């Protein structure tokens, strides 16, 4: 019994060695290897799969046109389920498989967990969707880039809008106590205090799912706030705007892209009219964006999902950087990303030294007659 078990272990180990040995040998072949990571199964698959589609479409196009500097691109697609543990395992696997640059990391948390492994291997990582500000601002991950604006950019935009454009002096900042909502609210508070032309008259969290928000609405009224800045998602936002109108509170409502969802308008109905919410800039008039969406419809027969255009842009930016740099060396790629402007579906972008895209941003939208209208 123990003999056969030992033999099995030896065989498994040998198999493992072989499995590692083969891909390492494969690096010598003249292809570029691009990892694509993200949740491809489970709850969050709808956020990850559009990136895979974007990569497939573009890689096919690039390879058909002769590749980058004569080299074909090979995709290494791996599922992280947005789980930190799985993401680090995947990172180790991709490094040993010889990936030279990686598209992805969809969720901020799991991306952060995997980044040190890619950094040690000198691999460039570009995310279409990880918005946690610390990923770029901490300076810990010089190999990390993204084609989406970080959460704090949104708070900054909303604060500028409220103070400089609307001229509000008293702002109530409310959040849903969640990571995303509270994070947004804390940035908003910080930026309001930095601006100095307005004051935060109230900073509070509400309990999601509570049966009634009239007490907090009365408190906002008591504070004399001219506007409510809310960090969180649409279910609470619609309850709060509804209660504000019902309690005859005449303050405006400004929120984040967790609220810029058609469900907000559907649920809050007439009470949503006039509310502001920031969200990614409308790029639907950009011809490159139209082409990208058309390509998806042709290839997969459906409309692309979340972060598709950001992923598409990330692949374009990385491909261009590899082409300009002439290698996949991290320093050379970083220099190319920071200096070269690339036309993408999300606009003409380049990157700052921290890794955030310049030219990608948010706009403020207002609910007018039951739709979100972008305010220029």
């Amino acid at each position, binding site marked *: 019994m123990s003999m056969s078990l030992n033999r099995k272990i030896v065989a498994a180990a040998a198999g493992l060695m072989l499995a590692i040995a083969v891909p390492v040998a494969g690096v010598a072949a003249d292809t570029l290897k691009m990892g694509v990571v993200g949740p491809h199964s489970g709850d969050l698959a709808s956020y990850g799969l559009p990136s895979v589609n974007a990569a497939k479409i573009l890689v096919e196009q690039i390879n058909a046109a002769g590749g980058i500097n004569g080299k074909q691109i090979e995709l290494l697609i791996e599922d992280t389920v947005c789980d930190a543990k799985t993401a680090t395992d995947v990172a180790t696997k991709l490094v040993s498989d010889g990936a030279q640059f990686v598209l992805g990391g969809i969720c901020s948390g799991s991306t952060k967990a995997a980044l040190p492994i890619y950094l040690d291997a000198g691999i460039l990582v570009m995310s279409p969707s990880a918005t946690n500000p610390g990923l770029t601002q901490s300076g810990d991950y010089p190999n990390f880039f993204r084609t989406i604006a970080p959460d704090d950019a949104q708070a900054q935009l909303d604060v500028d809008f409220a103070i400089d454009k609307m001229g509000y002096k008293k702002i109530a900042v409310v959040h849903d106590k969640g990571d995303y909502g509270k994070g947004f609210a804390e940035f908003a508070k910080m930026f309001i205090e930095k601006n100095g032309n307005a004051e935060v008259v109230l900073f509070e969290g509400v309990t999601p799912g509570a049966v009634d928000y009239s007490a907090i609405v009365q408190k906002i*009224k008591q504070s004399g706030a001219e506007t409510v800045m809310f960090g969180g998602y649409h279910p609470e936002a619609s309850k709060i705007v509804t209660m504000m109108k019902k309690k005859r509170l005449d303050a405006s409502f400004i929120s984040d892209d967790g609220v810029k969802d058609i469900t907000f308008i559907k649920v809050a109905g007439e009470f949503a009219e006039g509310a502001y919410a920031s969200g990614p800039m409308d790029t639907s008039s950009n011809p490159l964006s139209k082409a990208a969406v058309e390509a998806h419809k042709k290839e997969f027969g459906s409309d692309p999902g979340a972060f598709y255009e950001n992923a598409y842009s990330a692949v374009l930016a990385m491909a261009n950087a590899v082409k300009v740099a002439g290698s996949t060396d991290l320093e050379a790629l970083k220099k190319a990303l920071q200096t070269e402007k690339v036309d993408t579906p999300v606009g003409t972008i380049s990157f700052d030294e921290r890794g955030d895209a310049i030219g990608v941003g948010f706009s403020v939208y207002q609910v007018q007659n039951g739709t979100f209208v972008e305010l220029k």
Partner: protein
Amino acid sequence: MDYFIELLFSGLTRGSIYALIALGYTMVYGIIGLINFAHGEIYMIGAFTAFIVATILSILGFPALAIIVLAGLAAVVWSASYGYTIEKIAYKPLRHAPRLSPLISAIGMSMFLQNYVLLAQTSDFLPFPQLISDFNFMEPVAHIVGSTDLVILVTTTVVMICLTILIKYTKIGKAMRATSQDRMMAMLVGINVNRIISVTFIIGSSLAAIGGMLIASHIGQINFYIGFIAGIKAFTAAVLGGIGSIPGAVLGSVVLGLTESFATGYVSSDYEDVFAFSLLVLILIFKPSGILGKADTQKV
């Protein structure tokens, strides 16, 4: 002073909302000593039924009052049949089992119903129509207490009075009290205990359905998960007031609602739940059976 009154009414509304659900908890507990964790889901199903019926009727162009009455009626009938069926399927076979078994069964039922509605309906939030339009005479005080708030306050009061009369002065009420005090003895004197328990579930579920309709109309949205949080809070209120006692459930709910409202108003809504549950702990330390609960050593 205005601010105080505003908070007072916020608290009363919230308390009345809890009370409509808490009454069902407390009735069932009073009769069979079971915490019916599926009660929150009955409330949710009532809200969904009212939503579906109200949507259909408003498409057909019925007047507002007819919509409220018919949607309410449908919700009551539907929820009551759920309550009745749940008791027969999940609790009755376990009536002589150890007390933990029906409790687990209730939790299982709660999860089953949530997921059933999730699959059968949707996981999205749905806009619940505002069934109660703003009354003109309420306009001067609308900033303090809205028309829906008023309807909820009045309904809770009326329901509490009716229930008290039912239990104190009717034949079935007497049978309920007998069942609650000693099930075996009640059987021996010819009370159909199974029927009494079914009636209790039907009444409790009907109240939850009315609550579901009114509360959903107050909040303006529903989804499959609303029963959970509302149920937990109502359960807390029932324990606070003394579980098993009808006036206790209402008193506990109002105390809980006012505590949350004033905690939000004068301290911070971040600590709303901290205050609510600290109060619960405090009251249970000094009065373990709740504000109006009777000390009952037999049930330990």
